[in-house]
């Protein structure tokens, strides 16, 4: 290898994705002593967008731009504490789902059934039987029911994908149809009102002015970040998604891990269902409709690779906030939901095109 080539390789090295992701807050120079220093600075600003922090910065800028637009067009109605809390409350439910989905997508999978699982869990935890039991003992019965349903559906997905070798797209498509259908059967397509005062009192409360829903979202996001970036589980997720064969030959139980990822997402759907039930004080088979699209969109514009092997929780959270803020701004300006969808679509395309260009430039 000749010297100029070597320089070229080294120059790209710092720009490479993924490599920085895991190192988290540590500055880029920390692990690369001596000789590499001067050259790695060469690329400079052009590389900023390719590092994890840089990509997140881009998203933050997009979010800020959106807020400025909201502030200008909506005035005080937008820049109001109550409105901000509304945005966050709306973002919380889909946010919890998106954090879970980030794991599945990073691990090389996809899940289309998240919305249906949310619906089924919301129904199951608000049936007459569950509510009667909750009233006679504790509201935690409802929590348990929702989590168990979510995890159970995730387990079915996971077993089908990991051991049944069913393509994730198809396995979860079947779950999408099945779970929502089951929710309709159980509820007889009727909305189930929550009559457990303690449940609503706890979950729909405010703590120091912050809604509990938002706190749950924050906690889930923080746990998600820690698990993805700081634990063996997270490292294995990245390995399984990035190169399943290499992961297998390194001794990782790839099938089992894949199954866990879907169970984890199922649990997140259960949590989201509880939040939705608390917010609307109903369980319904129409809850969570099209959540799969919103969640996938948020994960993808956040910077997680749809092909697996790279995931970012921070990106996902900002992605969720971007979409929620967008619909808030549209609503405040009395623009139609249809117009919202068009803009959403444009944002997704723009974000993915940008990502691909950055990815190809780092690899060639």
């Amino acid at each position, binding site marked *: 290898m000749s010297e100029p080539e070597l320089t070229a390789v080294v120059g790209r090295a710092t720009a*490479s994705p*993924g*490599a*920085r992701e895991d190192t988290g807050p540590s500055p880029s120079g920390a692990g690369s002593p001596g000789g*590499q220093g001067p050259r790695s600075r060469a690329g400079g600003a052009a590389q900023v967008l390719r590092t994890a922090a840089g990509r997140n910065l881009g998203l933050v800028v997009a979010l800020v731009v959106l807020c400025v637009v909201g502030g200008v067009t909506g005035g005080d109605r937008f820049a109001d504490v109550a409105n901000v809390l509304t945005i966050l409350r709306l973002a919380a439910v889909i946010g919890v789902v998106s954090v879970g989905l980030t794991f599945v997508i990073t691990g090389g999978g996809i899940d289309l059934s998240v919305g249906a699982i949310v619906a089924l869990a919301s129904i199951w935890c608000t049936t007459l039987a569950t509510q009667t039991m909750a009233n006679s003992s504790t509201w935690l019965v409802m929590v348990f029911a929702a989590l168990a349903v979510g995890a159970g559906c995730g387990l079915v997905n996971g077993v089908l994908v990991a051991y049944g070798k069913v393509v994730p797209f198809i396995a979860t498509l079947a779950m999408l149809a099945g779970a929502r259908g089951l929710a309709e059967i159980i509820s007889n397509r009727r909305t189930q009102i929550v009559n457990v005062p303690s449940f609503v009192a706890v979950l729909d409360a405010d703590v120091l002015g912050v809604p509990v829903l938002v706190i749950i979202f924050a906690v889930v996001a923080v746990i998600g970040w820690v698990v993805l970036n*700081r*634990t063996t589980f997270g490292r294995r997720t990245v*390995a399984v998604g990035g190169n399943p064969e290499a992961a297998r*030959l*390194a001794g990782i139980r790839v099938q089992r891990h894949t199954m866990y990822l879907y169970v984890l997402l199922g649990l997140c759907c259960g949590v989201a269902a509880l939040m939705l039930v608390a917010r609307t004080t109903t369980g319904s088979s129409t809850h969570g409709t099209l959540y799969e699209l919103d969640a996938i969109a948020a994960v993808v514009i956040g910077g997680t690779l749809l092909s697996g092997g790279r995931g970012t929780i921070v990106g996902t959270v900002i992605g969720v906030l971007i979409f929620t803020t967008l619909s808030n701004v549209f609503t405040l300006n009395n623009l139609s939901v249809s117009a919202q969808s068009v803009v959403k679509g444009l944002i997704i395309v723009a974000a993915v095109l940008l990502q691909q260009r950055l990815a190809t430039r780092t690899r060639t």
Partner: protein
Amino acid sequence: MSDATPSTTEPPVPEPPYGPAGSAPLLQMRGIVKRFPGVVALGGVDLVVRAAEVHCLLGQNGAGKSTLIKVLSGSYQPDEGEITWEGRPVSFPTPIAAIRIGISTIYQELDLVPDLSVTENIFLGHELSTAGFTQRRRAATRARELLARMGHTAINVHRSVGSLSPASQQIVSMARALSHDTRLLVLDEPSAVLDAGEVDNLFSVVRQLVSQGVAVVYISHRLEEIRQIGDRITVLKDGTSVATDLPVSETPTRKLIRLMTGRSIEYVFPERRSEPAPGAEPVLEVTDLEVRGLFAPVSLSVRPGEVVGLAGLVGAGRSEVVETLYGARRATGGTVRVGGRTMPNGSVAARVEAGVGLCPEERKSQGLLLDQSVASNITLSTLRRFSRAGFLDHAGERAAARDLTTSLDVRPTGVDRAVRTLSGGNQQKVLLARWLLRDCRVLLLDEPTRGVDIGARTEIYTLVRRLADSGVAVVVVSSEVEEVLGLADRVLVMREGVVVHESPAAHLDEAQVLDLVMEGAPS
């Protein structure tokens, strides 16, 4: 290469031996160089192909055959070198350009659409049509003609390609190539998916095409096929053409194997310092391990500190044996015991827990997470050691990785760098570091020095020896005879899925191993 009169337009003489030495070169490639980041895939290759000859391209995996035909087919652009077609300089900026001039390539993975019919596949991309409507009847007639040209009138042109046998699919691929007025047909290991009868059939098709003036570049590592079908041979090794234009009839098989596998440089092998204790209990015991259809029952035991070499040509079943005993393939029979414990069939994780490690043949696709850092690649099999209640100790990981990369001299330094940016030799060191960190008892190395430059080779040899001296049992698979002989204490020779010989390395020399490797092949 005697004369170069441009006489390719005259009708070819269909007299055996095909491809008379007098015809002018159809294609000449000179000094072709192709570099990829961190590796020189082709370092100056020459190839001369005449009209109406079967020119064999011979070489081990990784010798540069695929890269060369990708240059020839317009998929890769060479960094240096010139290509002439009938004496005129040409370049192929795209695959279409190569097809236009008359070069068609049939890759190992056939590029057919299974649900389309034979006719539709043959004319895919250049459908016969008027005003956008396909001329189905004319296309079918033309397709029949093309198949007849190869003597395959039995294939129904309306059947979907997916329902045909692999051999017939190959014929369809060739018909598609011919539909482009092909004058040079490149066949990349066409016999790999065929059984013996089908191979004969393929050969008669090739002969028929050659008799019609088509030149064929035939890529294979099966020497007996080359004997049967080839006119001339070019041998590639380590990205250079080590011999060009050898006439098949005058070149003994042994010479070919030596050219393919022989040393181009003298490697220095480290001294065996300690003899493995002959009485020690074997740490790896393989009894009658078998995967039906891939290799016959193999028994093998390796003691701590011993290096066992598996020699043989590509396709002899060596990698399959190693992968099966590692649990990456399910065995159809036999047992594997590590340290006295029987391993569950098909479980890699159990082997790794028992202290077995594998550096696989395909480093990039099977071994590494290319976009991840050096540190996380090294600790991938040892994550538990760096975790407290599931939380990773990043500083500890990076410190351990730094120690290992320093002691193995991985360059450039820096454990946060993505593995993709390292050269082949350094990537291999990263993989070795993974198992060093694991303190494994049994290390399986499949082609440990493929795509590795000379300096790093010597370092890897030294490391393997050092590991053995420290009591690790090592199994080395290599196509390079001198590598097996230089590294191993004991050598098993495989041929066509069967272990044909086992003895201490000291009792063998290169010539004997070569004889064993190719025994049965006509010479």
